[in-house]
């Protein structure tokens, strides 16, 4: 039973990616999201569509599937760290914060779509808030990735392969340009620019998929080892 729950939690990582992308596609955030240089009319028209509400409802549920993944990362980090699992707690705290930070912009975008006939300036402002809140708060993500990376590299039992640790460091670095979104209204460093939205989206998706798949592998190996030792124990 435990194995099944652990596996489900691990699978929730890749599931987050798939379901959130579906939600954003339905909402029209993908393939090309609104940018800081979108005109007032474009923004108002965008939120006038019912698909935004449908898509954001899907995305707001989907994004919360990171929570089970964070829990199963925590379970494995406790095993890596042993008696003083400070990095585990750090990962759980920051992981919880990242989940909330991802969820709030989804809800906010749904709220904007709730009354699209309001004063257009308000819609534009709310859209700015939603996007900048979505893109710029990088510190919890970076701390989470670094905590996971350090725990993996310090783990002598190799619960997870060491390259997963280095991948986490790379993902942490890839979030560094994101606060630049405050400073640019167009170009590659604006919030929908290639080095902001697209880079972070790609690396965060890599994080969810790699952690999910590798944890699932670790769970399967652990339980097969246990079954084997049980069989040998009964045989003798």
């Amino acid at each position: 039973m435990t194995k099944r729950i652990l596996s489900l939690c691990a699978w929730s990582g890749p599931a987050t990616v798939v379901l959130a992308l579906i939600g954003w596609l339905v909402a029209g955030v993908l393939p090309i999201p609104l940018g800081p240089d979108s005109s007032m009319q474009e923004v108002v028209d965008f939120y006038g569509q019912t698909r935004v509400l449908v898509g954001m409802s899907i995305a707001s549920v989907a994004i919360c599937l990171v929570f089970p993944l964070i829990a199963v990362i925590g379970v494995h980090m406790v095993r890596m760290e042993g008696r003083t699992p400070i990095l585990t707690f750090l990962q759980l705290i920051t992981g919880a914060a990242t989940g909330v930070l991802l969820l709030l912009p989804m809800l906010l975008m749904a709220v904007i779509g709730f009354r699209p006939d309001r004063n257009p300036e308000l819609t534009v402002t709310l859209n700015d808030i939603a996007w900048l809140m979505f893109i710029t708060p990088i510190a919890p993500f970076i701390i989470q990735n670094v905590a996971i990376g350090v725990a993996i590299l310090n783990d002598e039992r190799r619960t997870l392969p060491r390259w997963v640790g280095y991948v986490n460091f790379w993902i942490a670095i890839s979030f560094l340009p994101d606060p630049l979104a405050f400073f640019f209204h167009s170009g590659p460093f604006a919030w929908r620019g290639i080095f902001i939205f697209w880079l972070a989206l790609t690396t965060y998706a890599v994080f969810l998929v790699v952690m999910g798949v590798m944890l699932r592998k670790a769970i399967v190996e652990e339980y097969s080892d246990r079954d084997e030792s049980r069989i040998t124990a009964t045989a003798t």
Partner: protein
Amino acid sequence: MTQPRPKADVELPEFLGGATGDVARAPRRAVTPSAGHIPGEAGLWIFLFGDMTIFAAIMLAFLWDRRADVEGFEEASHQLIQPIGAVNTLVLLLSSFLVVRALFAHRAARYVTARRMIVGAIVCAAVFAGLKAVEYYSEISAGHTPATGQFFTFYFILTGLHLVHVIVGTALLAAWQLMCLRRRPWSAVQRIVEGIACYWHMVDLLWVAIFAIVYLVSAE
């Protein structure tokens, strides 16, 4: 007679001081020895190449935008202080050399030499950051901020991201210094030390590329 039970006997989760031992612990994964030697370890290079890819992409975007405004980029790049950039290149190359010497010294268990070399590299990093600060100060006081056109946007972003890498690298060098201070044997820290050295060489390499593209190519 019941004695008060020691804390460790209470059924607490292992991480709160409960029963230790290898309950629920996955066994060590078998390590397959491989022929040849990758500096650091294979996983490290995922990080290094991933990081360099991000920098390369930003440099490509810089060159792409430059095509549309070659004169503007040329004029703007003349506002940079080339000698500072050149000196910083030499300073980082020197630091890389010192890191190599330190690595050889550590491998030969000559801890004092290694520590001297690492201190030298850290001083180089400090000189680099100091010169960078002087350069930023003179540029911003001359009215060239990240908001004054494409060239300076890219200049500040590329050099700023690089500076963050220098700061992280300095922290790593300091950690290495501590290892030498505690005389950690080479066999115990080889992967980490080689990783730190490779990271530092990457920081150096990135600066050489930034210097070539931002300071030199644009000025042509």
